[in-house]
């Protein structure tokens, strides 16, 4: 297992290099950082000084080397909007994003597991069709629209929850539902098809023919094996979770990483964009490794190779 862990951590390196290259090319080659950082009244001499200070007069490969060395040390430059180093600004937004993502994921699991199982057990009945219909609707509805409709209904009309911002539990409920429901929609369908596959297997038929209670067959025999795909599903959804967080945070003015990134993109605050992209990419890769480990713990048949 130690060997496996080292190997997967080493595999992060080429992916991160690729990301760094993409970010570097996009930012350095197509944009003009000097023009962005200086006021419009700047003279030609000011421009030349800043170009030299930023190392922009060096050949591209040297610039990339410097960019990479700085990035490894956590230095992505200074945000011109906040006048502070970019990385700490990004990191201080993480707890808010984690809070939202965790709440949404938990909600999605609580909704999707029972609905997915129920739908599979009652296959092709009214219940199945109904649940499938709801999950298709959840997939088709853009989550920013659902967020706005939830605000309209529960904040504006009923006045139960605050419209936006982060605070106690009341602030968390609407954003978590917005993000959680769209995750649950995909998850329900996947759990249903996994359960269907398991319910068709010989050992389930054997358990049933032994006269074991149906509840027990489903709960103990089928569901335990059904858990393995759930972990995979959660890891697959991780990227949609990040995308969804970006949008949900914008709808609810939730002070997380997503909102910071979107506003940085809109204002061309490239230092923040770079730092945020790196933090998210590292996080995604680490999560993938983690789910792989959980997967292996749940199913001992998988070898660390």
């Amino acid at each position, binding site marked *: 297992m130690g060997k496996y862990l080292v190997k997967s951590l080493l595999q992060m390196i*080429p*992916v991160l290099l*690729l*990301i760094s290259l*993409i*970010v570097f090319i*996009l*930012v350095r080659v*197509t*944009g003009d950082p000097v023009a962005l950082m200086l006021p419009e009244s700047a003279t030609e001499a000011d421009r030349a000084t800043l170009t030299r200070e930023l190392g922009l007069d060096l050949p591209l490969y040297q610039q990339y080397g410097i960019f990479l060395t700085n990035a490894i040390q956590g230095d992505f430059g200074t945000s011109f909007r906040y006048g502070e180093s970019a990385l700490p600004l990004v990191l201080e937004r993480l707890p808010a994003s984690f809070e939202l993502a965790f709440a949404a994921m938990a909600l999605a699991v609580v909704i999707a597991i029972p609905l997915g199982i129920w739908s*599979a057990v009652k*296959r092709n009945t009214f219940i199945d069709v109904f649940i499938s219909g709801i999950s*298709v*609707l959840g*997939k*088709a*509805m*853009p989550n*920013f*629209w659902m967020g*706005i*409709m939830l*605000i*309209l209904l529960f904040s*504006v009309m009923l006045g139960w929850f605050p*419209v936006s911002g982060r605070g106690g539990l009341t602030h968390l409920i609407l954003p978590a539902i917005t993000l959680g429901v769209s995750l649950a929609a995909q998850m329900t369908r996947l759990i*249903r*098809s996994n359960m*269907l*596959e398991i319910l068709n297997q010989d050992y389930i038929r054997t358990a049933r023919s032994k006269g074991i209670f149906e509840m027990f067959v489903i709960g103990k025999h089928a569901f335990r094996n059904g858990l393995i795909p759930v972990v995979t599903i959660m890891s697959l959804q991780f*990227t*949609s979770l*990040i*995308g969804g967080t*970006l*949008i949900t945070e*914008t*709808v609810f003015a939730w002070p997380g990483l997503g909102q910071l*990134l*979107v506003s*940085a*993109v*809109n204002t*061309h605050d*490239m230092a923040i*964009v770079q730092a945020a*992209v790196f933090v*998210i*990419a590292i996080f*995604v*890769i680490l999560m*993938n490794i983690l789910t792989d480990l959980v997967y292996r713990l749940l199913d001992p048949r998988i070898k660390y190779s």
Partner: protein
Amino acid sequence: MATSTESGAGTLPVPPNKRTEARGLKKGLRQLLRSKTGTLGAVIVLIVCLIAIFAPLLATHDPNAVAPIDRLKPPAWLEGGSGDYLLGTDNLGRDIWSRIVYGSQVSLIVGIGAVLVSGAIGAVLGVTAAYYGRWVDAVIMRLADSLLAIPTILLMLVVLAVVGPGMWTLIFVIGATNWVSYARVVRGEVLSLKERDFVKSARMIGARSGRIIFRHILPNVMSSFIVLSGMNVATTIIMEASLSFLGLGITTPDVSWGGMLSDGRQYVATSWWVATFPGMAITITVLGVIFLGDWLRDVLDPRMKLKNG
């Protein structure tokens, strides 16, 4: 797909038979009418396409005409509404119905355009990887793996931050970041087709690589390709709306449903209609595409249907 490969396997290289294709189409149409959701999906998609095509006839106003006196007018059937503005007006007094009508054009153009771009990139890379193998395969598939490790929306944000918004940029950016699923599916199909007798015999009689790929391999990959595209159009329409909502997608004079939602968000407390109708338009359109896509999958790829119960 199964029928065309079988017809090619027995004899010498035979491209997909036109007759079996026509029969398949007829059978498919009958199947479409039998599937309730499939029919519903087809009807919705057809209506949206017609609205997009006849937008100039259906719109009652110029979608970008600003009328400050008429700002935030409620829909016609509510108190204070006027028959002039069927679904009301937004914060600048623009007619919501006309904007939704024109927005359908953007949704469809971006949805289909981006899928064509990503399909083309994915098909070329997938065929190249599978057909030439070795290091070519390794390089392409590692690139695909790396792209999968980055959430697509993140990649798009970075690109759009630098390049700036716009419809054609959006089509290209969504297309260029979404090709991985195509490349994987096409590569897998080609790998298995490559070993089939009809491809081997084509090679034996001296057909060139280009001919084998275009005449014998690509037609057989088509059905997986179409199935994948159906699903991708739905996600692309949502993606466009999301990016436009974030202010990074479509810009004036083009109208996007996502952009309309972003305008309406600020007025949700007083004028619910500004954000409600464009969201309904997105949901209904995407629902139609999903239903039609599911039906396509059931018809073209029966294996998937079995798997999904």
